[in-house]
């Protein structure tokens, strides 16, 4: 056989193991990657903070390029944390964000990628609005009934992807995402049809009666914030203290193994998904009843993705989720200001969120590897 094949390499093939003379190494500085076993928590935190800063820097560049003067931008953000009215807006905004954040993190802990938070919010609000429009129950209990209806609405909308996954192994990412559109168009059908406001003819429902709106508790902050914090504590209890939480951890870590050692995998996963859907339903109710005062067309927009972002940044830890939710709320509020004063589209807020998610996702690499410069 002719040996004409080794065109680029001088490994002698005639004698399978020729002399190694002639192979030399070139020494030059280079980056060497090593896999690390673990990293101290503070270092992980520093890397996380740096990546968020990095995302903020990129976002700033984009905003400046879009026409917001850099100096103004800073003052707008500072204003959000200094101005009393802005703080109030941030805290009000934080309530539904906490809810969608913990909704996402509960589902993610069961490795169920619920991207249908917006659809579940829509059905939560539709159910609550139905209670309002049909005057269900005594007025004194109306608000509570609306909240319960919202839980049911969100829950039912999460049953569909859960069952499809169990029975037919349909990927829940696709089902939940597409069901958002189904929910949205169903909402439009109601708002342009039977539930259209008869007083002004606009595609939104009639305003809720005053007893159907979440009351202010203090300092013009409505009950949404304490409600969401209380639900957050319930979730912390379920995931970190109760037996359900232990099951969830095992399902998250290794489903095959969990099944083998007797973890009720199906029940636990369903529990997490239904909890996630219910929380999203409550988030919808909180926006409609606490902020808008009626069922409106686009009340849910941006929350689904924000929920994913919050769960992701909080590493599915429900105790950390409120902190991240406040930061995202600041971004929301500042975004609204920028929208008004500089005609920056609201989708810019989503763009900034996406940039931050990508930056944070990249930190995983630095947490797992060590980079050395070797000469």
């Amino acid at each position, binding site marked *: 056989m002719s040996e004409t094949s080794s*065109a680029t390499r001088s490994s002698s093939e005639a004698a399978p193991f020729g002399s190694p003379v002639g*192979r030399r190494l070139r020494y030059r500085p280079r980056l060497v990657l090593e896999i690390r076993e673990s990293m101290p928590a503070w270092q992980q935190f520093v890397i996380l903070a740096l990546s968020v800063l990095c995302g903020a820097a990129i976002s700033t560049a984009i905003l400046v390029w879009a026409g917001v003067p850099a100096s103004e931008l800073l003052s707008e953000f500072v204003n959000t944390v200094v101005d009393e009215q802005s703080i109030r807006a941030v805290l009000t905004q934080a309530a539904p964000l906490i809810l969608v954040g913990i909704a996402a993190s509960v589902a993610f802990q069961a490795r169920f990628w619920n991207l249908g938070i917006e659809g579940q919010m829509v059905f939560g609000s539709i159910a609550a609005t139905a209670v309002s429009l049909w005057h269900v129950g005594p007025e004194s209990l109306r608000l509570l009934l609306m909240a319960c209806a919202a839980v049911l609405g969100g829950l039912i909308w999460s049953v569909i992807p859960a069952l499809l996954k169990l029975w037919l192994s349909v990927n829940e990412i696709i089902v939940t995402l597409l069901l958002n559109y189904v929910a949205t168009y169903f909402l439009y059908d109601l708002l342009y049809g039977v539930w259209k406001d008869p007083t002004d003819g606009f595609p939104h429902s009639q305003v809720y009666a005053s007893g159907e709106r979440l009351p202010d508790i203090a300092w013009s902050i409505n009950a949404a914030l304490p409600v969401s914090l209380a639900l957050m504590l319930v979730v912390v209890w379920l995931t970190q203290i109760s037996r359900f939480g232990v099951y969830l951890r*095992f399902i998250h870590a290794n489903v095959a193994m969990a099944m083998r050692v007797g973890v009720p995998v199906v029940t636990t996963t369903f529990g997490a998904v239904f909890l996630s859907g219910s929380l999203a339903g409550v988030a919808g109710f909180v926006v409609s009843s606490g902020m808008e005062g009626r069922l409106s067309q686009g009340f849910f927009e941006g929350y689904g993705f924000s929920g994913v972002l919050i769960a992701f940044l909080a590493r599915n830890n429900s105790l950390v989720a409120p902190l991240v939710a406040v930061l995202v709320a600041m971004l929301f509020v500042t975004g609204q200001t920028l929208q008004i004063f500089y005609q920056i589209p609201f989708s810019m807020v989503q763009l900034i969120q996406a940039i931050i998610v990508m930056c944070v996702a990249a930190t995983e690499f630095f947490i797992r590897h060590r980079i050395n410069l070797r000469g």
Partner: protein
Amino acid sequence: MAAVELSGICKSFGGFLALDHATFSAQRGEVHALLGENGAGKSSLMNVLAGFYAPDAGSIIINGNTCRLAGPRDAAALGIGMIHQHFKLVKAFTVAENILLANPRNGYREAQAAIRREIRAKSEALSFVIDPDRRVDTLSVAEQQRVEILKALVGGADILILDEPTAVLTEQESESLLSNIRDLAVAGAAVILVTHKLQDVKAFSHRVTVMRGGRTVNTLDPLKTSTEQLTTLTVGENVEIPSRIFHERGGPRLIVSHLKHRANAARVTLDDVTFTVHAGEIYGIAGVGGNGQTELLEALCGGLVVEHGRIEITGDVADKPSDITKASPRQRLAAGFASIPADRHAHALASSLSIADNFAIGHIHEGRFGSWARVDRHAIWRATNAAIHNADVRGVRSLSQRASLLSGGNAQKLVLAREFSRFPRILVTHSPTRGLDAKATAAVQRWLIEARNEGVAVVLVSEDLDEVLGTADRIGVLVRGRIVAEFAAPADRQAVGKAMVNHV
């Protein structure tokens, strides 16, 4: 001139000294075995030689030149090729594409043609046949290993390191691989065989270096050294080989009848499997890997729905057996099942969770550790502490440490401790000692025998014939999903071996 000379190599990982002034040399023309228990530092030392780890101290001399290896590329340039335990192949690519990927050349078409020629030449020289155009995922494990070796050879490697190459192979495959390796050495390569199997060392290596606790203990001629001497050097102390005391068996406990399962229309994986296991009996299932072992085990544990057949268990009192063919894994656990799979990190432990959690999960649904509303962390810690102490699980710095940090033997002991703490009545286990060192193997086997003596019905599925012959009271031979023969202990090794391969 030695092909490889390592001296005074030290390497520590976060305070743990994995290599402690290790010294090793290998010549061209020899198969040099590196023998040691799990965690003795064999793989670490070889990873240093292959450029994956930078040593903290010590010198590496290749072909007479002192080298500094900044990475596997440097090592490859010096002709060092390492075949890892876990193959690094792209499954969807063909053999030729995989080899081309590791040894990039200019021009796709010409390079493919050239690579194909080289693969043919090299594999013919080694007297094995491999089609360069087959996709890697259609190859058997043994064939994939050959591809890895070819990859290194095509890259011009003449110092070959094989890390536990026979761990994934059957007896026959191992033999043919090791004789191929010997041919390579005779042709002029330096072959380093990392292993913990004494019989491989005795039969196929020219020299052996023994490692223990990160140090190289001694280099010997395997033909002039007895098995006992080698065992003593590797283990550091005499291993107690479990004595076979015959035990009175009880009534039938697990009755498996006419099990049938198909992977798809064409492939029958379980075919009319029928056997009975009594209380106080170890029923061994011998056979070459891939003859239905995994499916049988899954069927017993409830992970697989059989097409046909029954699995029944009986209580302590001779009563009507209850049918558990359709019971879920959870219901089987409640009925007294325990299982110890071969791949503990994939099937028995959640590697990313703590040791305490991994122990507690076996009991938590019984309400032993707090109510459903509140898990009692303290109770878990107390119980885990006691269990790992009893089971002699070592390497535990803290109970909150991740289970993945336990070595193979200690991880398996943790699994055993958990499964036995539930006092099972039926134990189903698949190659429970796979990948374990001699000491841990003996401990696990002793545990199985003790369980039997206490009246547990044990099903031991193993591809290691020595293990089955050494521990089982009765042996069924599984071939193509059928139990083709049954032997009572003490079984004739030749007869069992014949049944394993003579399938008609």
